[in-house]
């Protein structure tokens, strides 16, 4: 299962989380009272997401520094022929307590200025996570133009949620062959048009 999905900016400047969706909540400390716990949970949840995003951000920075391609070239590719640029792929092991209660693995893809991260349970299939992340990005680009207009992520958040509700239902990664995908895509098209 996926614990969280994050969309965030990559370069330049500080990392800004554009969207996140949690799919779970770890066990929290039992000793605190309810009121304390709820307000703290909100804050820690945001901080955890930001921590993951900034780790991806700094990995991506390094990848860019050693690659022969610039961010501008990525955006140019998008603008010119509307093909998806080549994505950087990475994995980060998030140890227990840094920042989540359980060990998790972040699978991320990034291109241009935008990064997409799936925070998965340790037991999750990472080949599948990578495939589905690609699929989600393709759909988000098709319906929200996410790579060229990142601000749409939070302005048209319903569309992002819609894509996720089809391809990441309740945070589960499904083994979808091309016909299952095609069916969901068709469904998505009609739903978005309405």
């Amino acid at each position, binding site marked *: 299962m996926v614990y969280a999905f994050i969309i965030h900016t990559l370069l330049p400047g500080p990392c800004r989380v554009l969207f996140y969706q949690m799919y779970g909540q770890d066990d929290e400390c039992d000793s605190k009272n309810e009121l304390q716990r709820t307000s703290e949970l909100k804050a820690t949840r945001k901080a955890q997401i930001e921590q993951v995003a900034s780790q991806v951000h700094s990995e991506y920075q390094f990848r860019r520094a050693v690659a022969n391609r610039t961010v501008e070239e990525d955006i140019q590719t998008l603008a010119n022929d509307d093909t998806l640029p080549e994505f950087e792929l990475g994995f980060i092991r998030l140890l227990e307590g840094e920042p989540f209660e*359980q060990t998790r693995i972040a699978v991320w893809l990034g291109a241009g200025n935008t990064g997409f991260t799936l925070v998965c349970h340790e037991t999750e299939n990472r080949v599948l996570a990578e495939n589905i992340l690609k699929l989600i990005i393709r759909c988000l680009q098709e319906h929200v133009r996410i790579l060229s207009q990142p601000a749409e992520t*939070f302005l048209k958040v319903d569309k992002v949620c819609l894509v996720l*509700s089809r391809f990441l239902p309740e945070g589960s990664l499904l083994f979808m062959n091309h016909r299952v995908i095609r069916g969901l895509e068709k469904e998505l098209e009609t739903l978005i048009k309405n």
Partner: protein
Amino acid sequence: MALSMIEKLFQQAKNTTPEEIEKLCNGILDAVYNPDQSSELTVQLRQLYLVLYASQTEPSVPVQFIPRLLAAVPLTDKSRIKECLLCRRILMELIPFHSDESAPQDGSESKQTDTEPSKLLLHVLQGKQLGCLSKHLAQAVCWLTSAGVDLDMQRRAFFFLVSVSLLHSNQVSTDQLKTVSDQMSSWLMNASLCQAPVPYTFNPFKKDQNYPVTEVDGNPATNFFTVLNIGQYYTNDQLLNIYTFSMLYQWLCQACRYTRTEKSITDTTEGNPQQLDKIILRKIFDSLVGRSIDYAFRVLDQCERKPKIPTDAELQMACLVETVNILDLVCQLDESHIPRVFQEVKRMYSKLSQDPANARIIIHVLQFTVNHCTALPYDASESFKLFFHKMLTRSFSNPAVAFETVLFIRKNLEFLCYETNVLSAYFPSILKILAWNPRSFVSDFCEIIPAMLSPTTAMEIFHALLDLPCMTASLEVIDKVKVIDPTSTTSPTSVDLEPTNSVDAFKSLLFRPMFNFFTRVEGGHGDTINRLESFHAVLQDMANHPRVLVCSQIVPVLTRVWFSVILEKTHSEFVSHLLPVLMERTNLLFRIPEFQDDIKKIISEYLLLLLKKFPEVFVTQLNEVIEFLTGTRNIIGKEDFFTNLVWAVGEYFCLTSGESCAPEKICQMYECLEVLSYEVSGITASTPAAEAPFSIKVVSVLMSAIAKLASRRQDLTPRAILCLTKMAQQHQNDFLEKDTQGILINRAQELINLLKLPNFASVILGPKQQLKNQRVHRDSTSLAAVMRGTHRLIAPNT
């Protein structure tokens, strides 16, 4: 540009006042039940979401807003799905609620809405305490097993159950485990083999035709339905089959975790309930385990078919990984399946191992082998060799393979270290992962490197670590050459003896072997190479490459790890071999100034610690040390190392090494230092400090060392006094600053005075260990007492 717009929008949203938020909320509540205002509702909801999302502090919404919105969320009307999702998203932004916040106060709607399947995710997000999980678990199990429940509902209930079991393993009861597992095994096996009818067109005159689903290659399906069967449209039971396989591994993992927690609880209370656990567990998962194996075997077969559509090939890859993991887990739950499963896994392995592109799957097969090889008569060394020798060499730069490999090594560190030769044989290959991804795996390698060390590999690994920037640079060069001209990697063509850049060097006959050495696959081919310095020179154009730079920053961390293991575990024979290596390597490093400084500092630091622990090394390596200390040429560029060595000679030489240290050895060493002292002070006394090739500290340390040695052999005392006097005289000139001069001359004078009292000198300049450590302030022979007494004798006026 887009990014500045993002900041502006966030700023705007942040500045929304509480009044505006309230107005917005009221507007939403007005519109939510009015289908005509759908477009306004969407706009308002989007806006509210943005305001809540951007707010830094806890957002304040009207008291009744959450319960009323909660009541509105269950709208499952497909035409209003966007509004539903927006509402849900807003609620998630506000989550977790306090229990009084989420309970509707008028009470009328509570019964109905509380058990809405679309809200299960919200309960998961509320967490264990606030989400009332146990109540909803029972409801979810009920939906799962009842006939005639909507597919969507079943799906949500199912994912909810798996999700809760993953997050809070103790929440699901054994009965629930059993019920869900039985349901899953029925979904796994009983899906129909016919496609669903086309949902969009309905033709009353056409007779319904049941087309069978096909395999990925287009042939008709041969056996039961799996995720790899293609149909134009899918029936509900087929979709449930897909969901079940997707969740199967994580559900079975639950079984493993369950045994573990149960065990830890019962172990403390009673005798041996382990066996009992296993029986209960087998009962719960028995039918699911059996069917999982059948399903997994069928998927393995299907993965051998060639798919018509490329994305299905990617799915096959994912399926293979999943299947191996499932089979691995199943064998852990019930060992009796191992022989049968192993045959199948072996068959698959022999097919996949031909192609290096399958590295990502092979690593999961290796995990299977590690977990079960004790139960099988199987020698895994060949498969380790295949992966770490052949596959890793080709795909270390693939981020997925690199990550999985490091994960695999860490997870099985003990096994690999004690049961196989993987770490000691293929460490150059494994280090390539680090050299290529220096930012990502530092902490992992801090754990892996100690496991790689053995008496035979330690030295080679030391060199490999120091040369890691060279390895990175070589890999970069090879990669670069491949891009420019793919044919040129085969054999060196140029006979250019003095290439000016790294790419030319790679093509040159002279340097190609060095590239090969640094990118070797196996260890045991010697520790270092000749002409390393000239190799550093040709790689100089890579020194500013970001990958090489980052690599040079992590080497000091790992070198410290290496030294700390050596210091703790090794014996004097190894240190004896190490000393000359340190003498050589301290100045033979890749030319990045910060890197060189860091490494020199670490080597000098650990030199002292090692010599303190193994002072006998001075005796075994006497000639090497004397040769190194002869003349001033070795001071330049390695001053810290040099002064630390001189200091260590004074401090530890022949002090504790007992009989093996004959008097003539002290004389030999003393003579060496004496000659050196004259030479050094000749230079420092005649050159202004700014131009001197080394600092005055060398002189000071030499003085101490001479005095210390002399205090151990009384016949040397007159020579030492003479030498110190001369050194002091030499420095009474105008080249040095007054302060420095004063320090040196005072130091010399103190030492001379001390040496004039041989009994005291030997105690103070070479105190026994217990004299330093024990609380002996009352004892008249303690160091403190002796110091006090001596001070009164040699400096009576102060």
